[in-house]
């Protein structure tokens, strides 16, 4: 029997071609990314710290260094440019917050709208401890011993007396 491998060739080509075509069609066209260069190690260190602290707004649970989104790429480039231009770290953070809001910060600032976020867990813990404390305190008074009344004392003696057995 002759090998029929050549029959698979069109399928194989189609399979290879499909992802390529899809990649060519979808996705925004980011400018080709060139490697980022920094004037000094201090600049690079600042850049590296910033891209770990700022959140990617497209893929919300990643920071800028983890994200492959085109926007994250643009923002990394923007940060690199600003770092090289000598912008202070807080200037760059202000730049991002002015555009995307506090959401870009993985460590949200302390202000009236975030008090619940910052103090909520602690408040919940205190409430929980308070509830536990009151319950335990009440139970402590509940298990206190109360002496038997005269009638109960009499009954107890009778039961014990029967158990002792006169007829033994």
């Amino acid at each position, binding site marked *: 029997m002759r090998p029929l491998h050549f029959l698979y060739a069109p399928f194989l080509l189609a399979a290879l071609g499909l992802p390529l075509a899809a990649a060519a069609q979808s996705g925004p066209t980011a400018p080709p990314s060139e490697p980022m260069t920094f004037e000094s190690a201090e600049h690079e260190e600042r850049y590296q710290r910033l891209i770990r602290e700022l959140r990617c707004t497209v893929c*919300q649970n990643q920071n800028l260094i983890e994200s492959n989104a085109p926007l994250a790429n643009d923002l990394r480039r923007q940060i690199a440019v600003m770092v090289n231009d000598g912008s202070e770290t807080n200037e760059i953070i202000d730049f991002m*917050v002015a*555009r995307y809001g506090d959401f870009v910060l993985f460590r949200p600032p302390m202000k009236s709208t975030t008090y619940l976020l910052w103090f909520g867990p602690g408040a919940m813990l205190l409430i929980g401890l308070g509830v536990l404390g009151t319950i335990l305190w009440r139970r402590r008074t509940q298990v206190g011993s109360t002496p038997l009344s005269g009638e109960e004392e009499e009954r107890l003696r009778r039961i014990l007396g029967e158990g002792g057995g006169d007829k033994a």
Partner: protein
Amino acid sequence: MKLRFLLPLLAFFALVGLLFVGLSLDPRALPSPLVGKEAPDFDLPELHNPEVRFARDDMLGKPALFNVWASWCVTCRHEHPMLAELRRAGVPVYGLNYKDTRSDALRFLARYGDPYSAIGFDESGMVGIDYGVYATPETFLIDRNGMIRFKHIGMITPEIIETRILPLYRQLEAET
């Protein structure tokens, strides 16, 4: 005594209520810090003709809609007829073509129609960053003085036009 047994039940319903509200919230919708601020300045080549410039100040003088879109954005395609609807209602619609290629964008407009008075061609996405764009389509309502008064992220629906955009637009029109 009765309250003691009722309390866990009430707490349970309160929790269910909170979770139910939480389900209906969209975690991707972020409040924009730009609402109430001046629209960031830009000066871009126009999409149709690179010789012509389109700047932020070209939108001023009358309240206008500023729509961020791209040909690679599927939602923008669904949203497109809504923009034509708004234009018919008398709202000037301007566009920002975000991280696109000129030929793709022009093909998109040829195919689905062009409701825009002018379109800035933001190839690098830098103007998009200034406008805090993270998910196309995004739509801004800018008043006659260049103040951003409303922002919508995602597709504009007929409900949003009826309940948010048109009432606010009429109000801005009446402002002097």
